[in-house]
């Protein structure tokens, strides 16, 4: 696969579910120097701020969301001693227990992998235009993380 095509696959916003094993392989196939991967997987939880949640829907700003995730990947590669970074976020309806977001960071040493992965998910929540509505017994509620 051409390098450019492969790079595009390292940052995605998609409706379909994903396999963590496949995404890990995508990262580690980039270098045999990788000795440690830190991975963050966000999943749909059945409770939120004291409310029962039966399912949720994610909406994203097509174009800007991808652009912000690419920015995050590039800054992580520049600011941390890591070899590869993959960022993936789903949109559309998501059931309880399902995957929402995945960050995979491959590095030579584990401390760098942990730090970069943590930074990526924190930054993702801050700057990526993605919104969530939760389906609760009281109806649909748009979640405001920063009121």
């Amino acid at each position: 696969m051409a390098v450019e095509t492969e790079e595009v696959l390292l940052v995605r916003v998609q409706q379909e579910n994903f396999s963590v094993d496949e995404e890990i392989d995508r990262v580690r196939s980039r270098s045999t120097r990788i000795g440690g991967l830190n991975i963050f997987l966000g999943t749909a939880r059945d409770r939120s701020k004291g409310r029962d949640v039966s399912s949720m829907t994610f909406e994203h700003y097509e174009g800007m969301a991808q652009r912000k995730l690419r920015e995050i990947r590039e800054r992580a590669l520049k600011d941390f001693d890591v070899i590869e970074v993959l960022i993936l976020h789903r949109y559309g309806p998501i059931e309880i227990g399902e995957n929402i977001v995945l960050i995979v960071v491959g590095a030579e040493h584990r401390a760098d992998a942990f730090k970069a992965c943590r930074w990526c998910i924190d930054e993702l929540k801050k700057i990526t235009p993605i919104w969530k509505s939760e389906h609760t017994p009281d109806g649909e509620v748009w979640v405001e993380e920063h009121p």
Partner: protein
Amino acid sequence: MSTSSVATIKLFGMLKTLVPGGELSLDFPQGCKVRDFIEMLRPRWPEVAELVVQKKVLVSVNQEIAHWDTEISNTDEIALLPPFAGGSLGKV
């Protein structure tokens, strides 16, 4: 004198529940600033304007967060962005 033009403003998340049709069209003078644009929203969509003034909703121009002084024209892609909620967990 600047010419005026109609632009469609993209809305997301809970903003779509505030604006019937889920989209917002506004006639504004070319090269006006974001601060002026917000005031032009107020007559028809006072609730939306208030959220922007309170910084609960951000304005983006061409997919970048805009400031009060950012100038806009009708060829720009303008959007109103409620608080983000990507990732999965609310609290750290």
